[in-house]
Structure formats: C-alpha cells, structure tokens
C-alpha cells in the first residue's frame, strides 16, 4: 500500500481538470492505497456546505481523507462550521508531515 497526498489548489468551479484529478484520487483509494487531499487556496471553496461539487463530493463519499487549510479558509471567511461533513481543518504542516513520511505528495 502506498500513501498519496494531493495538495489541491485547483477547484472544480474554474478548472475542469479537477474532475480527472478527483477521479484519479478515488481510483488510488479504491486500489487500496491511502489517499489524502489537502485543500489550499481556492481549493477550499469546494469544501463549503452547499457548494455544488459533484466530483469532489463523490471523493468525500469514497472516504478519502480531506483537510482544508485553515489560512485559506480564513481568507475566504469560511468557518469550520461552514464546511461539508467529514472535512477536517488543518495547516500546511500536514503536507510537510507527509513529505517527511516519504509519502507521494503531488500538487494539483
């Protein structure tokens, strides 16, 4: 089993590539790998409750661990209570932890 962490700066509202990015993350998860997604920058806009994000929501339903960057959330005035269920709030040190643990860390 491999560990993947995707740093998700792209969002589905402006970048259609996110559909394939999320599909790939889901495929890796289904293949038995440990997959996490850290939302940064406008990537956090997908995390707001009520945001219409079919591909992102599917990834959440698949059980991929999703963390939203607290700084990016704060810039956009999105509080922890405003998020979809099962999304944790964290900091970019989660990304560093993954790098130090020799996970495959990939920027989207």
């Amino acid at each position, binding site marked *: 089993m491999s560990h993947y962490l995707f*740093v998700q*700066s792209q969002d589905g509202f402006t970048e259609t590539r996110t559909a394939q990015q999320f599909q790939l993350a889901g495929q890796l998860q289904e293949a038995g790998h440990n997959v996490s997604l850290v939302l940064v920058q406008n990537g956090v806009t997908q995390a707001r409750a009520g945001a219409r994000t079919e591909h992102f929501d599917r990834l959440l339903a698949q059980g991929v661990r999703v963390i939203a960057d607290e*700084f990016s959330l704060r810039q956009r005035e999105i509080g922890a209570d405003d998020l979809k269920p099962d999304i944790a709030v964290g900091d*970019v*040190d989660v*990304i*560093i932890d993954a790098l*130090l643990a020799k*996970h495959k860390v990939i*920027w989207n």
Partner: protein
Amino acid sequence: MNDKKILTFAFMDPPFESERTITFFRLLDAALEKGAHVRVFAYEGAVALAFAKQQTHGNAVHGRDNAAENHPLTKDWILALQKKAASKALGFEWINCGLCVDERGVNEVVDGCGRGGPPDLWRYASEAHNTLTIGTR
C-alpha cells in the same frame, strides 16, 4: 548537514502573480518549523523571487506612504527563512535556474541564493528525503 531530513521544493511562479507563491513560502516555513533542511530549485518565473532589487512602494489608494505600506517583498521572505533556518541549525539552500535568470535579467539576487540548472534539481531531489514540485498555470 546533520542527520535531519532534507526536503526539496521546485517552484515556477514569479512574485506578485499567484496565490501559489504564498502557499509555497508557507510550506518552506513549515518545513523549517518541522526541523527539515530545505532546498529550493527556482525555475522560470520563480527566479525573480530572489531578485535583490525588488523595492517597496506606498499605496496612494489607501493613503499609506512607503513606510506605512510596508509592502511584502519575496526577497525579504527568503532572507527571513534563511535567518530562521540558521537559528535552528538547519540548511536553507536556494538555486535559481541560470538560463531563466539570464532571460529575465534578474541576475542580482540576495545573498545565499545561487545559480545552477536542471542537473541541480535532479541532484537536490536525489539527495533529499522527498521532493514537491509546484508548477505554474
């Protein structure tokens, strides 16, 4: 370097154009905070991040003069991270892709930033515990 881990980062964005620049610097800071040595390969527009002749300016729209505006400059961020690294006995190395520097004319860089090429990225990555590349859009 001591037995602490080295993390390599490759980046492409110039200053002042993208939110990616902020996340990148936050990652460098977080890496030092976690006790990792940091190595940066700056490619394409990112070579301007270390340009020594960046200058602050005032903000007439907001009624702030140069001093009051205290405008961020990425060269100062690099210097701050160098200082943080030194205080923690960590390495902080920065190599600009030389051809990228030449075509942009940003040859004057802050102390501690050097010049190299793609083989340096491979060397940095090969010697590092792990590498993160952040492309541009």
